[in-house]
């Protein structure tokens, strides 16, 4: 479905002076894109039921809505991938019943998906010019004009504040933030006037996010319209000017962000007030024996995790904050026996349960919701039932979880119970997990671990890429587990989430806990200052 790059001749023709908007007040500027009463049906199921959206130059417009509200469908109509069933799209004052990918591209609409579309094996340079490599003639033979590419790329990448980037390195070896910037640069080279960004910050650290925001502000100042899709309200408030909310395919609100509180926005998205903070209600007794005690855990390479010790008390959620790459996930892998250790002990209620591999970890009642749903989380060829039942089956069965027959009836009961308790939205537990939204997939994975009634639960980025409603539900589960006397550990790169859920925050840097802060008094600034102490 890739939009084919245009002929160079046509780019010139469609380049309709993007900067004519001038400094006039935002409200008066005519929208570049106006979507009116957009409807879309798939197999007689209405996904969009009359949605309106105005995008003006020099403005960051935020599109809010839960997973499944219809945001992606709307974007696909805007970029010409889907045909709308009803409504009209007005581009620069000209009405279109539908937009083709070519028209969208000529009008300067460009989208950056959450799953980046750069080709990891190619260099930054090749990615920027993919499909339209410039050629020159040498002895009559056309050859790639690397010099021209390099000069053009340098100027654009420099504009985005990444002047020092090695343009010849394969993109796959770069951090995600850099790949994203390359993707933005690709859009800029096509004279973008409307840049759509679908959850661009979901895999960025807070520092990288700040850098991205600086870039978005720069584009805005240059007169580009930015349509920003995000679930993170604090972020939305920081970067956005105006907003629209979608709920179940209907526009439920729009306006200037500054005129509304976060609670207002959430109410428009979810239809109810969502609780924001989940800290322990009473005080936590830290004098008695801890539920979980971790002593001197070191990874096999003695680098990524170095001599880490901590305790988790009854009723407490311990958070791990820190930059991406600081070794938090490596520590969790070491605790769960998924990674080799050079040493260390894990003591649950006074008993040594140090697991040598995940099989032993599961058997002794540890649960580990891993960071990456797709890669290490779910089993794509299994139904909801299969995904939930697998851990319990392993835990119950002798011979390393391999012996015995599958008890379908019992497993269905377990899966049904988790579906009910976590209110997983699905057609039934026989549905394939691939057909669920991200939030519901995550709930299935939570259910998979809840079904073994674990005593130690590690949540690594439990709400990455899922919507507000599902998020607060998962936070509630985390709190309920802590209240039930389980040892709960949560790793998160989203500081608001850490502050909302954790009673104590261990700040991780270079494989060590640098400091442990009290959750009630910690702030994003105090955590970051520890995470980045010594300038690193």
């Amino acid at each position, binding site marked *: 479905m890739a939009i084919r790059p245009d002929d160079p001749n046509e780019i010139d023709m469609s380049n309709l002076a993007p900067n004519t908007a001038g400094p006039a007040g935002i409200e008066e500027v005519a929208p570049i894109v106006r979507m009116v009463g957009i409807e879309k049906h798939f*197999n007689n199921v209405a996904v969009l039921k009359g949605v309106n959206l105005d995008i003006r130059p020099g403005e960051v417009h935020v599109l809010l809505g839960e997973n499944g509200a219809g945001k992606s469908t709307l974007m696909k109509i805007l970029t010409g991938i889907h045909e709308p069933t009803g409504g009209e799209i007005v581009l620069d004052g000209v009405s279109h019943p539908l937009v083709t990918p070519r028209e969208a591209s000529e009008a300067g609409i460009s989208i950056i998906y959450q799953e980046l579309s750069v080709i990891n094996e190619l260099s930054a340079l090749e990615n920027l010019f993919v499909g339209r490599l410039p050629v020159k003639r040498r002895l009559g033979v056309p050859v790639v004009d690397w010099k021209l590419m390099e000069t053009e790329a340098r100027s654009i990448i420099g504009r985005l504040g990444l002047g020092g980037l090695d343009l010849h390195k394969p993109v796959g070896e770069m951090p995600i933030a850099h790949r994203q910037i390359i993707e933005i640069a690709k859009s800029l080279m096509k004279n973008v006037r409307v840049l759509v960004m679908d959850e661009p910050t979901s895999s960025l650290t807070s520092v990288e996010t700040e850098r991205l925001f600086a870039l978005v502000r720069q584009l805005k100042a240059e007169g580009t319209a930015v349509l920003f899709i995000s679930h993170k309200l604090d972020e939305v408030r920081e970067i956005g000017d105006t907003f629209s909310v979608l709920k179940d395919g209907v526009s439920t609100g729009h306006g200037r962000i500054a005129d509304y509180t976060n609670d207002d926005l959430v109410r428009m998205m979810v239809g109810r007030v969502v609780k924001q903070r989940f800290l322990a209600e009473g005080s936590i007794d830290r004098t008695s024996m801890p539920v979980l005690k971790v002593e001197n855990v070191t990874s096999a390479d003695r680098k990524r995790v170095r001599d880490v010790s901590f305790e988790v008390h009854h009723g407490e959620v311990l958070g791990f904050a820190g930059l991406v790459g600081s070794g938090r996930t490596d520590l969790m892998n070491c605790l*769960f026996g*998924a990674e080799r250790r050079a040493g260390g002990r894990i003591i649950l209620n006074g008993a040594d349960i140090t697991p040598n*591999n*995940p*099989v032993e*970890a*599961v*058997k002794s009642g540890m649960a*580990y919701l*891993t960071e990456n749903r797709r*890669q*290490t*989380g*779910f*089993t*794509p*060829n*299994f139904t909801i039932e*299969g995904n939930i039942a*697998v*851990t319990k*089956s*392993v*835990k119950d*069965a002798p011979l*390393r*979880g*391999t*012996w*015995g*027959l*599958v008890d379908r009836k019992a497993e269905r009961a377990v899966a049904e119970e988790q579906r009910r308790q976590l209110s997983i939205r699905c057609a039934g537990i026989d549905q394939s997990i691939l057909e669920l939204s991200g939030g519901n997939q995550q709930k299935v994975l939570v259910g*998979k671990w809840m079904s073994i009634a674990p005593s130690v639960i590690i949540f690594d980025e439990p709400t990455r890429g899922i919507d507000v409603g599902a998020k607060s539900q998962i936070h509630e589960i985390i709190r309920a587990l802590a209240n039930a006397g389980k040892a709960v550990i949560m790793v998160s790169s989203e500081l608001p989430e850490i502050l909302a859920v954790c009673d104590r925050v261990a700040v991780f840097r270079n494989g060590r806990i640098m400091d442990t802060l009290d959750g009630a008094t910690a702030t994003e600034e105090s955590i970051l200052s520890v995470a980045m102490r010594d300038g690193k």
Partner: protein
Amino acid sequence: MSQRVKLGKLWDIYGTLCILLVIVVLFSALSPTYFTRPENIVQIFLQSSITIMIALGEFFPILIAGIDLSVGSVLALTGMITAQLMVAGFDPTLAVLIGGVGGGLALGAVNGLLVNFTGLHPFIITLGTNAIFRGVTMIISGASPVFGFSYDFVDTVTGFVGFVPVPVIFALSFAAVLWFFTAKTRLGRNIYAVGGNKESAFYSGIDVKLHTLIVFMISGLCAGLAGVLSIARLGAAEPAAGTGFETYAIAAVIIGGTSFFGGKGRIPSVVIGGLIIGTINNGLNILRVPTFYQLVVMGGLIISAVALDRLIARMR
């Protein structure tokens, strides 16, 4: 929409059978007098039994997104060991247990352990062991066939129960056991989990290395039992037996709708996949297509059968 989903599920289960029926109808039309005779139908099953046996084993490595290229050599080596044991005076049952069952499991374990310890793709490991096992077969036999073993053994294995040949009964009942294994046991289900996503299986507490080992041992066992069937049918253990059989086994598994990417496939469809290969072979023989042309037609039919399957799978 739900109707389309149902159709898709039905195709998953009965698709391979439909392909078999199409091929049967085709050959019946081309050879109305001979092809459909009951003796010939029995003959097709008999000719397919060794392919089915090997394909049943090959199914498992493919199910975990791997492959076993050594099945042909395992067949030859286990057959050779069994034959030599019988010639040396061992009781045929004991010889089959040591050579066919034990040998098959052991050679499979060699594959599995190598895959686990080196971390290399099974394609590379079994490409290597395929040559090694064949070489060992040549060495222990001096590259000449071994025959002159017990008539009782040959008679039993090539006999009939009613009108059904023993190898057919053997292959089909073994298929039934494996079907039960994949569908009802924890071990079987865990193998599907490993095939779907090794990493998430690992983090769920499934011992991926143990399952990889078991998968290759099953493959070895099936090839070992096929080795026993093969020496009985030929009345001799040929050092070159089973050369190229891995192609037929893989073809049967893939025609049976098993995904090369792992985690998807069914034992009954693999049996039908094996029957399709056998039917094509048989039909071409009856039509007196010369051997060299048979190869060409066979290759073309394999590609068409799988292409058709995927086309229909995509349409839903």
